[in-house]
């Protein structure tokens, strides 16, 4: 039973890291991306390939994930510089859909729909294995705290204020001399690398990855975590991640639901929660009550 909770917690932490990253884009910079799962996937594939072919050292694999994700996130940064708002949403949507097909087709790299199986357990400092769920959870928590620290540092710094300025009015921000292009690109790259690291941890957790985990569904899930918790707040994304990861688990304990309908019921409650929350508490659970956007 303990293993069960540990694995659930691990999942919440992993998605939490990804959600924090998306919050940098959505909450701080106003860049509404539906492609976050793409970078989650890129990080997962990078780490998995590194672990399978070179070394399962967690620092190396996460480093690979960060590197590859940072470079590929420029694919998202580019449209972010060209358009914003609804246009950008649809553009990110386009990127997500194309990436899904690329993941399926680049079989030499990703293994296609059959995926990459048998990802070895992560190690650190040579031989110390982080393979058990508990150890992986502690590692992930460490990474999560580190990630939060980085966000805090950035946001306290003028970077955070500058992003806020861009979110509120790009024209004004440019008028006061902010290098909008550089700031936006930095935000995108930073946010996406969080997703990459989360993806690497995900790959180690399940020991198997394939394109099914990196679709529009997951992008939507992570986005909902951010908005539910409260975009722009520090802990909002985490709250959202915990709730949305736990919700399906809690539902399984309802006695009167037949097992074949559990999935449907989960979705229904999930969707309804989203709608109600947006009507009555749009700033999210952590956000201020009548937050003006």
């Amino acid at each position: 039973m303990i293993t069960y909770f540990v694995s659930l917690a691990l999942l919440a932490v992993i998605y939490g890291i990804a959600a924090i990253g998306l919050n940098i884009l959505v909450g701080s910079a106003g860049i509404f991306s539906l492609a976050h799962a793409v970078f989650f996937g890129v990080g997962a594939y990078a780490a998995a390939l590194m672990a399978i072919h070179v070394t399962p050292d967690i620092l190396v694999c996460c480093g690979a994930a960060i590197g590859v994700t940072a470079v590929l996130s420029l694919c998202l940064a580019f449209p972010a510089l060209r358009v914003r708002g609804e246009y950008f949403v649809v553009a990110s949507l386009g990127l997500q859909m194309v990436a899904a097909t690329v993941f399926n087709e680049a079989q030499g790299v990703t293994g296609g729909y059959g995926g990459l199986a048998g990802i070895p357990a992560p190690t650190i400092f040579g031989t110390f294995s982080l393979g058990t769920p508990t150890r992986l959870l502690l590692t992930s928590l460490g990474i999560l705290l580190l990630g939060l620290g980085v966000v805090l540092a950035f946001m306290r710094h003028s970077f955070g204020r500058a992003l806020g300025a861009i979110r509120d009015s790009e024209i004004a921000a440019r008028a006061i001399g902010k290098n909008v292009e550089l700031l936006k690109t930095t935000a995108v790259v930073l946010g996406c690398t969080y997703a990459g690291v989360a993806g690497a941890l995900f790959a180690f957790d399940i020991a198997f990855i394939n394109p099914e985990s990196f679709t529009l569904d997951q992008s939507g899930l992570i986005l909902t975590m951010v908005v539910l918790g409260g975009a722009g707040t520090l802990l909002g994304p985490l709250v959202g991640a915990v709730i949305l990861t736990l919700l399906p688990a809690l539902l399984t304990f309802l006695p009167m639901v037949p097992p074949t309908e559990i999935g449907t019921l989960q979705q229904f409650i999930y969707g309804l929660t989203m709608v109600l929350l947006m009507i009555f508490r749009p700033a999210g659970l952590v956000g201020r009550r009548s937050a003006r956007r």
Partner: protein
Amino acid sequence: MLVIQIIIAGLQTGLLYALMGAGFSLIFGATRVFHAAHGATFVVSGYAFVTCLKLGLPLWIGALAAMLFAVAFGLLLNALVYRPIQRDRGSFFTVFVAAFGSVIVVQSAMEFFFGREPQTVGSSMTRSVEVLPHLFVAPIFPIILVIAVISLGAVASFLRWTSVGLSLRALSDSPSLVEAFGLDPKKASNLAFGIGSALAAPPAILIAMTNGINPAAGAHVMLISLASTIVGGIGSLVGAVAGGILLGLAENGAIAVFDTQWSEAAGFVVLFAFIIIRPSGIFGARITR
């Protein structure tokens, strides 16, 4: 001949996308609400049609039901979800997440009542006939063409020639001005939702007859409709139609030229290209950055 066949297939799909895109564009253009749940309207409408036919009711009643349910659903969503959010100065994010949630609610409700398997109504109209050597066209194709032209023509005329239609166009430019002229923005927004949602009924009926309706069917159609609105140019009805047709052709064309695997992504590649090169779309106004 293969080329012509693919073009016809592309047109058939494209017209359906065009209708969905036009509906979305109308709603978005008039109310500025990013009605991402338009796909849910499609699904509800389709199931209404299929259920009527499965109950043995004639085709025209099914079609009527599809239309009624589509309009009712669109209005319901506007009243229960979008308006409360907008009252509270809801941001784009909020509306989007709410729409997203609504889609999920509808999808799971449909799954619960109808199951996940596609439901279809068999009809001889979907069976192709060899009209020219190696050219197969189903009787349903000219029907789709006619319905699309009539619907779009009707909507366009309405917007252009009637005063109510004019008020809708005015609404997107300046809601306060509309009020000043004594027109009710709330009524106008309902009108937009009503007409826009009604446009989802013909595609739903046609898809129900050809491929079958299943709860997840709205998603793909919705995504492509969003894409066609952007490609065509937000705010332009003609653009949404052109965008839809273009994307339908791209999707089917990809099958002919590239690996069949890329058909789903083809539309989005086109979208992405437009965003990078010409974000305002084919017919849209230049967007200010």
